């Protein structure tokens, strides 16, 4: 991460911590959810901006996911979505597609990323327009609900994987 990126992110973290303390102690009154949404959007953009073209593609992909997650949270906050299960499947596809678009912009020589991104986004739009009431969307929604219920177990699994494979880091 570049020096300006570090400064922006660290300042944001300090402000978030201070605001939260002020909110908890009753000095300030604001919705924490709204702040988190804006932070997702802000940090998503900052991570993408500071990692693009810097050989930090993992972080670039994550930055794109954070930004799209911020947009999705903003949509659900501002608009009344009747059935959130129906939009989860296309949203995840679109989010992964956006991540691959960023990878393509980072390195335009890799045309494969553009093909995958286009494919994911097309499937996402197609699913949104034509499959909104189909069994696939509803089943995918159920799978997502199960994964959402067990997210701590998934996080632990990811953590253990990173710790167990730590020696592999040096081989990349």
């Amino acid at each position, binding site marked *: *991460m*570049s020096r300006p990126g*570090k400064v922006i*992110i*660290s*300042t*944001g*973290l*300090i402000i*978030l*911590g*201070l605001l*939260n*303390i002020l909110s*908890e102690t009753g000095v300030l009154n604001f919705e924490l959810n709204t702040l988190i949404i804006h932070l997702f959007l802000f940090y998503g953009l900052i991570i993408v901006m500071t990692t693009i073209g810097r*050989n*930090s*593609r*993992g972080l670039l*992909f994550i930055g794109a996911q954070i930004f799209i997650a911020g947009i999705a949270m903003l949509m659900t906050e501002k608009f009344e979505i009747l059935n959130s299960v129906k939009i*989860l*499947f296309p949203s*995840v*596809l679109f989010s*992964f597609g956006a991540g691959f678009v960023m*990878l393509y912009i980072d390195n335009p020589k*890799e045309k*494969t*990323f553009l*093909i*995958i991104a286009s*494919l*994911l986004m097309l*499937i996402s739009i197609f699913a949104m327009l034509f499959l909104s009431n189909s069994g*696939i969307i509803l*089943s*995918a929604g159920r*799978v*997502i609900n199960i*994964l959402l219920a067990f*997210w*701590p*177990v*998934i*996080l*632990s*699994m*990811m*953590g*253990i*994987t*990173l*710790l*167990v*494979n*730590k020696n*592999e*880091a*040096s081989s*990349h």
Partner: protein
Amino acid sequence: MNNELNNTEKTISDNNTSPEFGNHSQRVLLRSQSDKIITGLCGGIADYTKLDSTFIRILFVLLILLGGWGIVIYLIASLFVPSGKEDLTMEKSEQRKIIKENRQVLSGSILLIVGLFFTLELYGIIEFFYFAGIPPVIFWSLSVIIAGVYLFKGGWNELPKTEFSVLNKSATHKRIAGICGGMAKYMHIDTGFMRIVWLIGTFLTFGTGIIIYLILWLALPAEGEKQ
């Protein structure tokens, strides 16, 4: 970690042959400057005890679950244990290897602690507790501020530059076609982590991950082949 690289184990060879001391070496506990994530305490303990620093770090992480006292012990010990000298002879590649491993351990520990905490909470084994006597919300706010200060002070250093990698199927980190291995290498992340993300993505997108995998299998060259 990398005991051969340690610079913290200050071995004082006592050449005094008097019967009072005899021929022996004395090891001193110092905070590591090479194997360091926050203050280098775990690296120093690992060098001193000849254990893997990851093992020490996991122990400290698990101590957080016991009311957050692991953090307090860590901070107090860091104040009292002196810092070791920086190893100026260490090569860039070795430095990069240690930074990368430590980052992976740090990320893995954070994921593990958050996951374990909420898993235990899911089954009612643990509840939100006062971390070291501090209310949870204040604790999290302070943690966020400390993370900001750590980042600002340059604790998270930029990795030394490496060559620009090309996306291809991995020959070394391969289970089916080496796609996850190749992607992990390209994105500078762990292969196991990449596989889990791919698997979850496939579930979330109801099998689209398999289609993407097959496309990449056909489209990508094998490692060492020209594109």
